[in-house]
């Protein structure tokens, strides 16, 4: 539905977008994920017509909209700082776009419906500047939704909110988007948010898309080292494919300090690859026990610290460091402490290979 072809944009000497391509499908929640300065906001601004691209084409439903002025693109925009009109009350804020489009009749019902949709009925006469951050963002949402745009762009809409409000609103927004079936492009730098909200995610880096895919794919099977590091993958090692066992369906990768067994992928011996193992897929034991896991590495605990609901154990394996996430219960049962010798086990299928 929305397609960006080869978009380039520079501000003075800084190249912000370098030949960006995107293809957003109808009705999906498409997340642009990247750190600050990667060009996320510039991309949104170009789609909305607020900034003129230097080169490239923008298509909506197949028609090129490069030359359509912003107020005629019919694309909603929700801002990080809400951008409500401070001189208008909540009702007038939502009504604004109806009036601007000269729909003077039957405003009342449409505004009411939009405010109900975001759970703000009864807020009509309030001053938006006196509302909480979460409520302000709901007003902004209602304001963008009232004209039933074909598509809505959201620029880190939740990043100015408290953790608790953010979590609730994230959930509600996802529901709303699904219910309305609204094509949405959502910009964020927050991986958890991207994971929860996105039907598909594009990871941006340095003005280009690094990788596009489902959250599952981006987070568990990233195809690029940058993406793997960005989403917080911990154990990434350089290695070389040493043996291909076509019959067994596995292959060997040797890194500087250890050997890994992984599921066979089409490749040649001697190829340099990156091998990643997610910390939570590693089993940690104090004495060697037989298991079906094909990988086994001995090491020594460097440190243990809490990592959200889990505990993270840093293990030194001959110079390399491997992070292992285990439950608090397991830490207690195994009586783990700094300096302990441990054995790490993980399945061949747990080793993810990046070419």
């Amino acid at each position, binding site marked *: 539905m929305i397609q960006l072809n080869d978009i380039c944009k520079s501000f003075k000497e800084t190249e912000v977008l370098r030949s960006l391509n995107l293809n957003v499908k109808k009705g999906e929640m498409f997340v642009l994920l990247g750190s600050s300065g990667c060009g996320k906001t510039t991309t949104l601004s170009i789609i*909305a017509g607020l900034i003129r691209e230097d080169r490239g084409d923008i298509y909506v439903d197949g028609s090129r909209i490069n030359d359509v002025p*912003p*107020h005629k693109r019919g694309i909603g*925009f929700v*801002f990080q700082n809400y951008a*409500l009109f401070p*001189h208008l009350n909540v009702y007038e804020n939502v009504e604004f*776009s109806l*009036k*601007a489009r000269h729909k003077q009749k039957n405003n009342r019902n449409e505004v009411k419906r939009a405010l109900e949709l975001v759970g703000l009925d009864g807020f009509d006469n309030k001053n938006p500047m006196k509302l909480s951050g979460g409520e302000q963002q709901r007003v902004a949402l209602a304001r963008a939704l009232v004209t039933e745009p074909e598509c809505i762009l959201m620029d880190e809409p939740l990043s100015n909110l408290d953790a608790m409000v953010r979590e609730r609103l994230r959930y509600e927004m996802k529901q709303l988007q699904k219910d309305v079936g609204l094509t949405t492009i959502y910009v964020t730098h927050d991986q958890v948010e991207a994971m929860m909200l996105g039907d598909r995610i594009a990871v941006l880096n340095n003005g280009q898309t690094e990788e596009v895919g489902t959250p599952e794919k981006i987070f568990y099977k990233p195809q690029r080292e940058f993406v793997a590091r960005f989403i917080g993958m911990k154990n990434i090692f350089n290695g070389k494919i040493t043996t291909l066992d076509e019959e067994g369906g596995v292959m060997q990768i040797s890194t500087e300090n250890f050997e890994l067994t992984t599921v066979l992928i089409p490749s040649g011996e001697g190829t340099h690859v990156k091998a990643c193992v997610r910390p939570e897929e590693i089993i940690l034991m104090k004495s060697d026990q037989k298991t079906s896991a094909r990988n086994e590495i001995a090491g020594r605990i460097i440190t243990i610290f809490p990592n959200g609901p889990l505990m993270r154990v840093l293990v030194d394996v001959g110079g390399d460091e491997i992070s292992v996430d285990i439950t608090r219960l397991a830490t207690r049962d195994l009586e783990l402490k700094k300096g302990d010798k441990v054995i790490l086990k993980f399945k061949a299928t747990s080793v993810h290979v990046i070419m």
Partner: protein
Amino acid sequence: MFEQRFHFMHQNSFFHILISLIAGIYFGFIAAIIACLLTETSLGEFIDNIKSPEILSSIIISLETSIAVVILALIFGIPVAYLLATRRFTGRIILDTLIDLPIISPPLVCGLAILIAFGGHGLFSHFDVIFTIKGIIIAQLFVASPFLIRSARIAFESIDQDILTAARTLGASEFYTFRKVSLPLARNGIISGIIMTWARALGEFGATAMVAGCIPYKTETMTIGIYMHALSGNLDASVALSLLLIVSAFATLIVFKYLGRYNDPIK
């Protein structure tokens, strides 16, 4: 988090005493001089002086011209301010400088320029403005309108860009956004500018004196009156007119404080 600026306690240092002393001398100097003016006359004398026909006429001329200047400044100044605030075009810096020039140049020089432009063999000599009220308005407009433009422009510029952008994405044309968002949000800045321009026009002397001369009952404004009466030794009349101007200056200041410092164009 709190907008308040910390005030460190423990200020009884030598440094604190020294700067307080210097500041005291300065404020004493300013206050004493202003006090001298305020105590020069009594209410009775003041009213008698104001009632004289020549002074009344100069007050009326001053009010007429300054109000005309404000209206003209609004008509021309708002579009100029909006253009400078929202557009990036080539030559923008030149126009910007052109607006600053009347503010930074001595009014007398501005007056001389107008005198030459509209005088004997000047570019606009077919307009009959020298030694007329029209001349006063032109002189005051030249000197005072940049203050409105500056103030309105800063007000337009300090509107959160996202709010304007939001209006555009909500389907508003530029004109609709200007009327329904920019103008209401720049209101305080524009009012500040109006008052500043009005005060400036009212107190203008150098340019007016150059262009309008001093013809009692015809081109004698309040400031010209002050000067002429002081020269001719009629200090009481000068003081009366000065007090009126001081009061209007005070009123101006109070409005500024009320509208908030951030929009204060003389800042």
